[in-house]
């Protein structure tokens, strides 16, 4: 579904990604962990071409997409993204947030998009909040609307960039539950998170990144119980306390 080969990215003098390669199968959930500044967010943004990689290749369904003759918008329509800080459109209600993409990008009929949008809001447990502005929702509710907004584009895969890091502890559960339900429904997901419970139960594979490189890769058990690399051990030790 998604394949990345030898990805390199510099920000000025910073070498953020140093030859990243990975592959995610259809319906698979891949969790990426690693210390801040290790390039996780940049990697996600290179996959949906929000950031243009310096070199290397990104494939979606076997097609190389980081080419000049492919519009990045076309790629982004097919890969949904959920942000750490929600980034809901502040001037639109929950339902309008969800329907903006289908109406303006896909050109769907507003009536149809609205019906779909209500269904999606119901799916993330917010059917009654359709007419509420983001500022009136709790963090957890905002993030669930953001997930519904990404789903509205009917994406082939979803990218989650630390979706629970900005949340108060009491709201983390509800967002993770929605994500776990998505995974059960067979959505292909790449999740940057430090929620070990989620990583352990939902993900098949965990990838540890540090300083722009993939240090170690394995099942949750391998990474959490028997890490091979010293750096992985240190990091996992810190997170699991």
């Amino acid at each position, binding site marked *: 579904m998604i394949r990345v080969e*030898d990805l*390199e990215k510099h920000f000025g003098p910073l070498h953020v990604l140093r030859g990243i390669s990975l592959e995610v199968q259809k319906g698979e959930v891949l969790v990426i962990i690693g210390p801040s500044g290790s390039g996780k967010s940049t990697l996600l943004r290179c996959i949906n071409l929000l950031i243009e990689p310096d*070199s290397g290749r990104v494939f979606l369904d076997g097609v190389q997409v980081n080419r000049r003759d492919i519009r990045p918008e076309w790629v*982004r*329509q097919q890969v949904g993204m959920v942000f750490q800080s929600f980034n809901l459109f502040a001037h639109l209600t929950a339902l309008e947030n969800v329907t903006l993409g289908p109406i303006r990008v896909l050109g769907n009929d507003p009536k149809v998009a609205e019906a779909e949008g209500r269904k999606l809001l119901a799916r993330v447990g917010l059917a009654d909040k359709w007419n509420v502005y983001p500022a009136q929702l709790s963090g957890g509710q905002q993030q669930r609307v*953001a997930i519904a907004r990404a789903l509205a584009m009917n994406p082939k895969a979803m990218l989650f960039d630390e979706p629970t890091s900005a949340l108060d502890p009491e709201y983390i559960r509800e967002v993770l539950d929605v994500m776990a339900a998505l995974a059960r429904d067979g959505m292909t997901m790449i999740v940057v998170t430090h929620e070990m419970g989620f990583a352990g139960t939902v993900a098949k594979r965990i990838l540890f990144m540090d300083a722009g490189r993939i240090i170690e890769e394995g099942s949750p058990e391998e990474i959490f119980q028997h890490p091979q690399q010293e750096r992985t051990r240190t990091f996992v030790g810190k997170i699991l306390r």
Partner: protein
Amino acid sequence: MAPISQERSRSRWRILDVVAAAVVTIGAIAYLADVLALRWGLNVAYISASYPGYLKAAWISVYVTTISYVLGMGIGFALGWVRSTQARPLVKVLAARRSEAASATAADGGRSDRLFLGTLMLYGFKYYVHRAADAYVAIIRGTPLLVQIVFVWSAVIVYFPRLDPLLQGLLSGIIALTANTGGYQSEIFRAGIHTVHSGQVEAARAMGLSRWGAMRYVVLPQAIRLVIPPLTNEYIGLLKASSLLIAVGSIAELTTYGRFEAFHTAHVFEAFALVSGIYLLITVPASKLIEWVERRFRVPGLGIQAPRTARV
């Protein structure tokens, strides 16, 4: 909810407030009327006989101001948008391109060099447009409007000497005011666009909206709510600034007309009292109107904070 007794005493205070305000206002007006009409001997007969001429002149002021304001908004928005984006000088683009080429592998040959020249030209163009816009705003904001008006007027006289003086004046007035407000409005738009959180644009682009789509559906609706107050101030300021067209002299806008009347009828105080009054009659309701517009289009969490009550 406050207890009823507290609620009632609060409304009693409010009534007292209103009464006090009314007394002060009426007293002030009565005193002013006394000073102006009785002690100074402001000629009420002159005012009531000749105010239509002033209103007509005020209409010309509003007309010139509005045309300039709308044209200037086009300039201001375009420049504001350009100046809110980042542009890199060609040297840096070339350097980045070189390091990119050095690290690119042979398998990356799909990127052709014929696109390279196009990219280069685009970046260079964008950068110079950016710098030119900066220079324009610096010039407009760094020189007096009166100088700009006289400058444009002289240019118009030199290049269109045969034109009717009235048209010359109108043309130079509109050009100067448009150029001026364009520069100032670009600052307003730049700030407004800049204030919209970068995460909003990222989210919009991430769902597949184009650059323009993100601007049209996400940034602008938020930015407009932020720039309504400063844009209104700009209109009011421009209306007042249009009085500087007195330097041109051939446009019968309000101030010019007032001076003409003052000198030709010797009713100096009456003339400028009328002129001031009419300016006030336009500017005060304008700011009230915009307060209403602001309230009407307010969205929770955007701009001035609204009470946190659900709308469901």
